[in-house]
C-alpha cells in the first residue's frame, strides 16, 4: 500500500514532466523510472505478503489466489520480460484482474452496506496477518 502511490507519481515524473527516456530529459526520466521500480517492487512484495497472510477464500472468495499470483509473477517480471514479448505482455496484464476482483468485492460490500469483521481487523496492510489467524 505504501509503495503503490509511488507508481502514478513515477509515471507523472517520467512522462509528464521529463518527457520519457526516448525523447525527453534523460535524468528526469531515469529518476521517474527508479521511483517506479521502487513502488513496483514494494507493491508486488506487499501482494505476496497479503496473499500468504490471507486465508484462502477469506477476503476475495474464489479470487483469493490472485494477489499472491500477481505478486509472485510481478516480482519475476523484470527477468521473465527478457524471455519474450508475449510473456512480457501476459505478466503485465495479469496485474489487472486482481484489481477487478478487488473492485467487485468492494462494490458488493458497499451494496450490502456492511463491512465484514475480518476486514475491520486490518487497519494497515501490515496487519493483514490478522486475516490469516484462525477464528
Amino acid at each position, binding site marked *: 500500500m505504501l509503495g503503490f502511490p509511488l507508481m*502514478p507519481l513515477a509515471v507523472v515524473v517520467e512522462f509528464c514532466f521529463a518527457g520519457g527516456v526516448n525523447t525527453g530529459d534523460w535524468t528526469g526520466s531515469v529518476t521517474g523510472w527508479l521511483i517506479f521500480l521502487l513502488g513496483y517492487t514494494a507493491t508486488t512484495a506487499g501482494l505476496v505478503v497479503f496473499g500468504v497472510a490471507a486465508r484462502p477464500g477469506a477476503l476475495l472468495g474464489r479470487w483469493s489466489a490472485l494477489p499472491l499470483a500477481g505478486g509472485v509473477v510481478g516480482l519475476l517480471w523484470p527477468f521473465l520480460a527478457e524471455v519474450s514479448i508475449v510473456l512480457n505482455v501476459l505478466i503485465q496484464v495479469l496485474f489487472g484482474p*486482481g484489481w477487478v476482483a478487488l473492485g467487485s468485492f468492494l462494490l458488493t460490500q458497499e451494496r450490502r452496506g456492511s463491512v465484514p469483521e475480518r476486514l475491520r481487523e486490518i487497519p494497515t496492510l501490515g496487519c493483514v496477518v490478522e486475516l490469516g489467524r484462525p477464528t
Partner: protein
Amino acid sequence: MGFGALHRWNGPAAIAGGVLWMVLRPLVATTWHNPNFGLTYEDYNRLMVAPLALLLLGALGLHARCAGHTSE
C-alpha cells in the same frame, strides 16, 4: 472527499482501473520504438496515469474500510 464518497466510488474505480490497465499495459509494452494506433510509448505511458489514479482510489478505499471507517 468524505469516506462516504470514497466507499461509493472505490469499487467502480478499482474495476475501471483494472480494465484500463489490461488494455493499456500491452500497448505500453509493445510500443517502445514502434508507435501503435498513432500513439507513442510516451503517449501510452501518460495515459497510464488514469488507471493508476483509479487503482489508487480503490486501494485507498480498501485501506479506509480496513481502518474501520464506514460510509455513514
